[in-house]
């Protein structure tokens, strides 16, 4: 009982989804793109088409680099449903959606999951206080609503942190400080991969430019440790330890945290696809072949959701998966696929360096303080998790039952890796052996009334 059938359904209208749709529609395949935002671009090119008419320069070249892709996508002729959340892909490849209060099922011969990345949690004391946001959240406010906060403190590491600070100062906002938590050991493990990173000179040069311009206006403090945020019902300040062991207090109303991004795997996990633990990048990613084909022959994963590579690499993987699907419709595209694959490998050349440099130290992956919250939804603290481990919980799902961590509305998106790593520490097992929460549909919230609106949901 479905409303519509498509040859290709693409979930997510970020760079991977947009590029995939351009490729499948060009080959004449009946394509639908489903996205939960009101305009295309994903997070990286969010609100790009609306911003483009006003062209605020503070968002920078790396943002406007998405203009051509966004325009090509708008003109490509794919069906495009906005404000539309996918809450399940069934074993018979029905895609269950909810949009504006109504649920719907569609079917597709091939599905491309292009749901991108989410930010890795940075669970320091006080990180749940109003006034603390992720750096991605702060950047989204700037892109979507042209809102910024003066005198914010940015804490953490990674390219997105520096890009956002750069955008902040270009927008005329004052930044109190950047507290970089990248440790010396990370530099040491990343350095051997620096030569490979020089295959991406543009990206390295861009990073250098951001840093240079930031340092002219903002205090950048490196090797920061033991970060704690203080406040009662909102942020009042934060404290940290410098590399020389000095404890510093800073008053602040805004603290923006970032420790890199990880694949958003909730939909691919809930669909029952195989996943692998990537020990170097320290995250779970779906198992795919070179074209992004998952453990289900009909489902492909493109973009950062299959392993973080950034916006340009995401667009290439979208083209790669799409051209593999086109080939399976009897239109071989071997040269195109080879070209996309080489381009993809080229874009990935900087990743071994970045992945090692920006893998957060343990003190920023696991809270140091017993009272720090791990599961934000259910307000479960580190002490609560340790209590559950002491009571004999041996895996993420059992620990969920014991402590309620991961049982809230975000379905473990925030606490999943933290809980898993605490179990690994406690039991001495590897992260791969411990596994992740069992993620079940619906992966997006849906009310009973919306569910009941599904045609055929009730026996006649």
């Amino acid at each position, binding site marked *: 009982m479905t409303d519509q059938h498509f040859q290709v359904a693409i979930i997510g209208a970020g760079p991977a989804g947009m590029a995939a749709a351009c490729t499948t529609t060009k080959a004449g395949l009946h394509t639908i793109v489903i996205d*939960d935002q*009101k305009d295309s671009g994903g*997070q990286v090119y969010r609100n790009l088409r609306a911003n483009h008419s*006003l062209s*605020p320069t*503070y968002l920078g070249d790396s943002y406007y680099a998405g203009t051509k892709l966004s325009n090509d996508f708008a003109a490509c002729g794919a069906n495009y449903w906005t404000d539309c959340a996918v809450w399940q892909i069934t074993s018979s490849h029905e895609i269950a959606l909810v949009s504006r209060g109504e649920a719907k099922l569609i079917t597709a011969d091939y599905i491309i999951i292009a749901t991108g990345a*989410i*930010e890795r949690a940075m669970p320091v004391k006080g990180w*749940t*206080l*109003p*006034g*603390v*946001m*992720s750096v*991605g*959240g*702060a950047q*989204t*406010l*700037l892109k*979507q*609503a*042209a*809102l*910024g*906060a*003066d005198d914010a403190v940015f804490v953490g590491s990674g390219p997105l942190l520096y890009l956002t600070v750069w955008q902040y100062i270009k*927008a*005329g*906002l*004052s930044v109190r400080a950047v507290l970089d938590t990248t440790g010396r050991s990370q530099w040491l493990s990343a350095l051997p991969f620096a030569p490979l990173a020089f295959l991406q000179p543009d990206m390295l040069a861009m990073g250098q430019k951001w840093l240079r311009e930031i340092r002219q206006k903002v205090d950048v403090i490196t090797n920061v440790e033991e970060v704690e945020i203080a406040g*009662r*019902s*909102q942020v009042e300040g934060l404290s940290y330890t410098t590399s020389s062991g000095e404890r510093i207090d800073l008053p602040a*109303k*805004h603290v923006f945290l970032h420790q890199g991004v990880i694949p*958003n795997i909730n939909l691919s996990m809930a669909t029952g696809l195989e996943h692998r633990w990537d020990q170097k990048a320290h995250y779970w990613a779906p198992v795919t072949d070179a074209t992004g084909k998952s453990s289900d022959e009909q489902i492909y994963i493109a973009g950062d959701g299959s392993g973080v590579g950034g916006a340009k690499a995401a667009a290439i993987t979208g083209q790669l998966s799409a051209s593999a699907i086109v080939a399976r419709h009897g239109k071989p595209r071997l040269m195109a696929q080879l070209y996309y694959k080489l381009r993809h490998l080229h874009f990935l050349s900087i990743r071994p360096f970045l992945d090692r440099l920006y893998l957060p130290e343990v003190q920023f992956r696991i809270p140091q303080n017993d009272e720090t*919250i791990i599961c*934000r*939804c*259910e*307000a479960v603290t580190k002490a609560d998790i340790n209590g559950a481990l002491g009571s004999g919980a041996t895996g993420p799902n059992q620990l969920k039952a014991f402590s309620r961590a991961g049982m*809230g*509305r*975000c379905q473990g*998106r*925030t606490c999943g890796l933290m809980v898993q790593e605490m179990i690994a520490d406690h039991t001495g097992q590897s992260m791969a052996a411990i596994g992740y929460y069992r993620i079940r549909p619906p992966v997006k*919230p849906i009310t009973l009334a919306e569910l009941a609106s599904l045609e055929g949901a009730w026996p006649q």
Partner: protein
Amino acid sequence: MDFPRGDLMFRSVMTKTGKPVEFQFEDEIITAIDGDNVAAALLKADKIQFRTAKKHDVRGPYCMMGVCFECLVEIDGRPNQQACQAIIRDGMQIRRQQAPDLDGEYEG
């Protein structure tokens, strides 16, 4: 166009044009621009405390992309609405969301 610094938590860095809409947050009438998301409209009006979680924690928007579910508010009587995903509409009635084990007292 100059956007002076004020006492507000967030400020505009660019002129955004659009139809003004009025909505209610708790007992206050607030003006926003049609098409803004609810979380941005509230933050712009200096409202950063959106709900209480268990153990009397006060929470506000965190990820702004629909992942963390920290910005849940009650919109037009419907609880558990993600403010960062909902679009502000004229006449919307928005309330802070209270954790079930609390009786609704804000400290902030």
